[in-house]
């Protein structure tokens, strides 16, 4: 409970701090939302040129971008600090998080707020609203969508925690983590219907890219409860694994006596 209160307090303060530069704040939010429409345009033309693949229509592409943008936005807005682990480790700034009496992962995750990620949240909500309208969803499906946003955000958070925990294993970690992130996130934005056979297996169970957007879209469209159960189990497994990997990785950290405190 205390940890949750801390998380709430940190997010509130981070938003207040970011909103101080009002023009920049608004431009970042709107700019990111406009920027994200590029993927919808691309895949819509793809569907128009190539036709339906794996049963995926333009509506599903909108749903995919909605789920992906929303989970990305939720995680990188409130837990933007995860992205800075590599730099903190390299510069020795991680010391100050180690000294904090709060939960270490929570402390570092909440240490930074991604303003532009708010644009992803706005974009994600708009996309999922359109998706719900296009699909003529029932109340039951709306509940499933909300549940899936939560599950895909957990998967996203777990994946990036594991990716950025590798910072403790490499000297110049920011480049390596950047590469791992590309490998995880880029397929999450791709047309889900084109992932079949071995590719689908790899990007579901080994790299959880499809759990962020494609599989949630298929669950809503087909009302597939077995897939919902699968994503729920996998999100719990990935979350447990990410905590384990993070705690193991932190043990490798060697303090460089960087004498600063605070956020």
């Amino acid at each position, binding site marked *: 409970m205390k940890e949750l209160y801390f998380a709430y307090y940190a997010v509130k303060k981070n938003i207040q701090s970011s909103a101080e530069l009002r023009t920049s704040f608004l431009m970042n939010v709107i700019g990111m939302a406009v*920027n994200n429409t590029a993927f919808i345009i691309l895949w819509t033309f793809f569907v128009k040129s190539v036709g339906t693949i794996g049963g995926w229509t333009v509506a599903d592409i909108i749903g995919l971008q909605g789920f992906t943008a929303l989970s990305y936005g939720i995680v990188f807005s409130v837990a933007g600090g995860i992205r800075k682990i590599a730099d903190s480790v390299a510069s020795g700034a991680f010391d100050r998080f180690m000294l904090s009496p709060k939960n270490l992962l929570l402390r570092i995750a909440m240490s930074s707020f991604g303003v532009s990620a708010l644009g992803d949240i706005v974009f994600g909500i708009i996309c999922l609203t359109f998706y719900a309208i296009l699909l003529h969803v029932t109340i039951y499906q709306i509940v499933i969508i909300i549940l899936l946003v939560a599950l895909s955000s957990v998967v996203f958070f777990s994946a990036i925690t594991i990716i950025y925990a590798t910072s403790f294993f490499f000297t110049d970690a920011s480049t390596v983590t950047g590469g791992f992130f590309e490998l995880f996130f880029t397929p999450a934005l791709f*047309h889900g219907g084109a992932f079949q056979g071995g*590719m689908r297996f790899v990007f579901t169970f080994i790299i959880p890219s499809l759990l962020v957007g494609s599989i949630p879209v298929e669950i809503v469209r087909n009302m597939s409860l077995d897939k919902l159960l699968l994503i729920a189990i996998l999100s719990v497994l990935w979350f447990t694994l990410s905590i384990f990997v993070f705690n193991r990785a932190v043990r490798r950290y060697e303090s460089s006596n960087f004498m600063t405190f605070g956020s």
Partner: protein
Amino acid sequence: MKETRLAINIVKILIKDRMLYPGKLIVDTFSVVARCGILLILYWYVFKLNNGVINNTTFLFTAWSMFFYFSFSVLHLSGIARTIMQDVQSGNVEVLFSKPVSYLLYRIWWQIGSGIFSFIIISIVASILLTLAIGFPPTITIGMFLPSFTLTFLLGAVLTLCVYSIVGLLSFWIEDVNPIFWIVDKAVMILGGSYLPIALFPPLMYKIALYSPFGASLFITHTVSPSWQNNWYELIGIQLLWIFGLGIIVYWMYEQARKKVSVNGG
């Protein structure tokens, strides 16, 4: 002469740096594998579902066209926009303006130098792998391919630098150019033929790609197409026109930016 020496020195130093610290090469390789590699596998599957032909084009042409896009993107010429913004935000621009070299030229050569090592290595290795995996399109073997490809590649690089320099120079007036950068970058991504190859563009989108600077900066993706043999001079002409127009804007903006900065010394 001084400018040429500066350019050679910057590029030489950065190539040596990248060879000694191959971190950037690793991340670029991951990026190309994640984006281009996975896309090619997906398109291979999609073409297979459509009996090998979509919009009168085959996977062979599509794959090479997309490969050229991602290979060009390894140069990271777009990074000049953010570098200029960081210089302005950090105040570093004041120091660089006081040097006896043109700030903009220095940044342009820096940008070219920082990406060229990864570009050469990845392009060579990936083109060999692609040739071994799927072969190469017959249009590549035509005599005029190499000179016209080289020319459009160089002009595309200059045009890209012009487009992103304009975005970067805006930071002298706007506190954060990131939102503008994202929009321009996505326009280049869509019209350049990244995730959707130009052969699959609808007619209107193809026209926009042809006559906008965003599409023109990546005309190398057109070079594998059979129509390239007939319209290459027209496309290179479009590139030259955009370079002329945007070059004037870059020059004007740079002069205005110079007037805006006050170097206080210290």
